[in-house]
């Protein structure tokens, strides 16, 4: 961490801004925002649950973009393809983190408020499915033989991108035929003005956190890739007995 390059400065500023916004958001959510009329204080979970759950829906598309870029550059520019794959991997990990948080916090909110841990409506089922598919994404990455890993994972990412909207639409259609016993009022159906600062601060804060952590994970993956390449180059040069300059 020696020289303050432009990247480092921007990263540092972004991280500082994120932390400040999240601290302010926490303050707003817990101490300033008024208690909700029907649900009570447990409604404050909303300020953390909704941003995390939304982030869990955004980063899969970053993963999809990275995967498509990887497949495009795979034969044309392998170095760019490698970077694209690093982005795909970073976004997939962040997706799993946010999706897991979204699922668990949703359940923790649902139990006291609606009396049930879970229901099979279109939102929750699609969300669970998204989580399952990305877990299988990591299983594919871990179990496949080297050389194939990135391509197979990229293909799975495309399937995920196509499948998740289809799941949502099919279950939504199914559920409108058999309405579920619990009515989901929709937490963002008309947000009280006094709650808006808490919501927007936390929303911005967690999305910014997501961007930061994806970028950090991407940088780590790139560092690993370059280290691996250097090690491979070293090994090849050693085997050719060319003196390493």
């Amino acid at each position, binding site marked *: 961490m020696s020289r303050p390059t432009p990247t480092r400065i921007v990263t540092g500023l972004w991280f500082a801004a994120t932390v400040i916004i999240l601290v302010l958001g926490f303050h707003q959510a817990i101490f300033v925002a008024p208690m909700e009329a029907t649900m009570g204080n447990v409604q404050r979970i909303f300020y953390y649950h909704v941003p995390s759950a939304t982030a869990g829906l955004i980063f899969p598309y970053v993963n999809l973009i990275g995967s498509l870029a990887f497949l495009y550059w795979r034969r044309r520019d392998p170095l760019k393809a490698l970077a694209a794959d690093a982005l795909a991997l970073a976004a997939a990990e962040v997706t799993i983190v946010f999706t897991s948080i979204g699922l668990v916090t949703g359940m923790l909110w649902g139990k006291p408020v609606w009396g049930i841990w879970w229901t099979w409506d279109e939102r929750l089922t699609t969300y669970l499915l998204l989580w399952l598919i990305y*877990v*299988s994404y990591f*299983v*594919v990455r871990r*179990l496949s033989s080297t050389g*194939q890993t990135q*391509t197979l994972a990229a293909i799975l990412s495309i399937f995920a991108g196509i499948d998740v909207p*289809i799941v949502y639409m099919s*279950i939504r259609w199914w559920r409108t035929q058999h309405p579920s016993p619990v009515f989901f009022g929709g937490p963002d159906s008309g947000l009280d003005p006094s709650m808006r600062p808490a919501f927007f601060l936390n929303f911005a804060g967690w999305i910014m956190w997501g961007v930061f952590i994806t970028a950090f994970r991407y940088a780590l993956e790139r560092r690993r890739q370059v280290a691996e390449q250097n090690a491979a180059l070293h090994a090849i040069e050693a085997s050719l007995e060319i003196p390493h300059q």
Partner: protein
Amino acid sequence: MNYLGHVLNHLRKDLRLEWRSRDSINGMLFFSLLVVVVFSMAFDPTASASRQIAGGIVWVAILFAATTALNQSWTRELRNDVMDAQRLAPSPASALFLGKALANMIFVLAVEAILAPLFTIFYNLHAVGPGWLLALIMPLGTWALVVNGTFFAALGIRTRNRELLLPLVLFPISIPALLAMVQATTGVLTAELDSIQLYLWVKVLISYDIIFTTVCLLLFETVLHAE
């Protein structure tokens, strides 16, 4: 040779290989029979509600049976470096995929042909709704499972724990199709859905089949040449 010729060649090859060893079909048949029996223990078939769940049980049994067949459908290509020969062959990669998917389809349909009467007997089923629709729903649903299953089985050829990977990846992706086929089958058996809804589920199945067959055909070449 045109595309269809390539597909038929691949299909013939798989059918012939399977006919000689018959391990896939035997495994599937026996496994399905066991599944039917176990489900009959778990969910009392004589109860009046059995008609409601029979659709779901049939498709779960077919899903498990198909998975056992799909897992080993590509293993015969691994021996003797056959996969490398396939990569070098002048036939388009998607023809290989289509031929194998069709072969798997025939195997699973053969098992269904035996499974369906068994279910009818064990669960005292008769379709209250338009029974002829089942002749449309069963192949459509089976194709949805087989086309994705063949693709993901190919995806996992070189992976460790191949048998684990296939259900892990296949089941989440197949959920819209599973929902549609179970709802449609239950709708036919119980006649609780009006015809508009029933036909809509069939249309969902058809769209799913078209979308994912196209995606699999387009992406198979990438999988074949993944290294």
